[in-house]
């Protein structure tokens, strides 16, 4: 590799590419700027074949990549009303409507049960496309539902986090999802069934500071941003440049905060292997 392949080629390709190809067929890798066929990208679990960049994957694709068509969606409660009548530049109810339309989801967390190599498991999956995967009442309740289902049916619990944290538009009610989800996970863990927490890009704020850091094992996808405070806030506070790779999965592994850092294509195999130890 030299500066031509690293820098000039991708720049050229993105420059030429953008003009000539229809939008809907190709995706540009935000890291290496190479064009990738969308079809191929989906097969590759949304990992760039050129630079291994892990795109954010939506909850449904994640679910299919784990279970194929062999899963059952578990219904979770929806928000009835906007209790705070929150409005910034847009009304919260309008933001919700738009997110529902764009993602075809009811809220940011999908709960399902399925079978992984003969082991039945319960999963909860965050979808970052739904308002940044933010955790409000519906997401919190989805985690509680997943815990209760796994507890009742004595199943391993796997939660895939991808969230900027609490949903500001629900104010204190979203903050209360921290103790609520911790209570649910804590109660589930007393059954001695395994809880695997999978941290994907990004896992921060009220999600990382609640159930996500309480897994029996914590696995992080490659190069995911994981932390409590946002890096911009930290930079403004300390007025210094942040260390290289700060708050990335690999950095957290060095700091002893996660068990493994893993490529998305190996994740399923790894989970199966771990469950064989914990759930023989």
């Amino acid at each position: 590799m030299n500066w031509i392949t690293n820098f000039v080629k991708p720049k050229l390709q993105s420059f030429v590419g953008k003009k000539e190809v229809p939008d809907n067929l190709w995706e540009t890798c935000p890291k290496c700027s190479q064009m990738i066929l969308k079809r191929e990208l989906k097969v590759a679990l949304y990992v760039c074949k050129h630079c291994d960049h892990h795109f954010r994957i939506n909850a449904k694709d994640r679910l299919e990549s784990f279970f194929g068509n062999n899963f059952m969606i578990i219904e979770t409660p929806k928000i009835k009303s906007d209790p705070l009548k929150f409005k910034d530049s847009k009304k919260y109810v309008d933001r919700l409507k738009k997110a529902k339309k764009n993602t075809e989801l009811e809220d940011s967390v999908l709960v399902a049960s399925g079978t992984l190599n003969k082991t039945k498991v319960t999963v909860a999956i965050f979808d970052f496309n739904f308002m940044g995967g933010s955790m409000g009442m519906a997401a919190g309740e989805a985690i509680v539902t997943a815990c209760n289902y796994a507890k009742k049916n004595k199943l391993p619990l796997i939660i895939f986090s991808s969230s900027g944290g609490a949903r500001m538009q629900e104010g204190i009610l979203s903050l209360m999802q921290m103790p609520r989800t911790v209570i649910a996970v804590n109660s589930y863990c007393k059954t001695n069934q395994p809880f695997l927490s999978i941290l994907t890009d990004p896992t921060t704020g009220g999600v990382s500071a609640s159930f996500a850091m309480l897994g029996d094992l914590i696995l992080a996808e490659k190069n995911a941003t994981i932390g409590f405070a946002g890096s911009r806030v930290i930079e403004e506070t300390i007025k210094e440049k942040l260390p290289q790779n700060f708050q990335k999965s690999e950095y957290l592994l060095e700091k002893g905060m996660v068990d493994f850092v893993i490529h998305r294509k190996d994740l399923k195999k790894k989970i199966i292997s771990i469950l064989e130890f914990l759930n023989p």
Partner: protein
Amino acid sequence: MQNFLDFEKPLLDIRSKIEELRHLKDTSENIANELSNLQDKYDKVLGDLYENLTPIQKVKVCRHQDRPKFSQIIDQIFDKFEIISGDRLFSEDRSIKGGFGRLDNKNYLIIGNDKGNDIDTRVKNNFGMAKPEGYRKAQRLYNLANKFNLPVVTFVDTPGAHPGVDAEDRGQSEAIASSIRCSINVRSPIFSFIIGEGGSGGAVALATGNKVTMLEHAIYSVISPEGCASILWRSANESEKAADSLKLTAQDLLDLGIIDEIIKEPIGGAHRNLESTCSAIKERLLSYTQEFEGKSSESIISQREQKYLSIGKEFLIS
């Protein structure tokens, strides 16, 4: 001289006039009458202002430099206090203090955010922003309370957990998450008092009480109004709008079913009368202690869990 907040300017004006007249050292009836009139006016303006504080004004009041802080409150309320230090893992974090407290011959375990009373302690205490070692000390304290079956009293007053490279490196998220989990498993009752600023996850770590009680002008919020404004309005100048929208006042939180009770503050706010503020807190604490006396560990844990699990249920459709 008292420290006045920006919206207290009318008070400051009256106070200056009073000081001016006093300075005359004139004991004539005219002056005495005027002084008494001015004092009446001052009291009325003060009462009116604090009766109608807007959310952003409450934000300023709860952050007031003279607002009662942890150590002053402990001194006032408890007959005896034995401080406990360190997380046994890394260091001593002075932004979270704790120890054994005795009140009316009953023993308690106390944990609280301490913003510090003066510039020196404020810096030492990192302005009440805890690092992982602070939360890990809190876990030690929760575990002690659990082992010796001591009721826990927490005092919440923090802008939030410390945002910094060191805090992240040592697992700020894990420390907060584990503190919450630790508190959930405590078999003795936890009484949480939000006395000033209840800032985000850093506050939740100390606020998972069987009873959660707020001082009248305290706030409790998912994010600071400034932070919220800079994200959602893209301008920190919109923090007044954000403060309105976030529903962070004690009155809003009582309506939303987040807290159990509000403790009325003296006229002009807690910082104008430490003694009466603390005696009101003490009175509630004694009453809660009595309420929970003789309850089984199972019922205490279950009441706490159910309290949180039922929050917000009315806003969801199953």
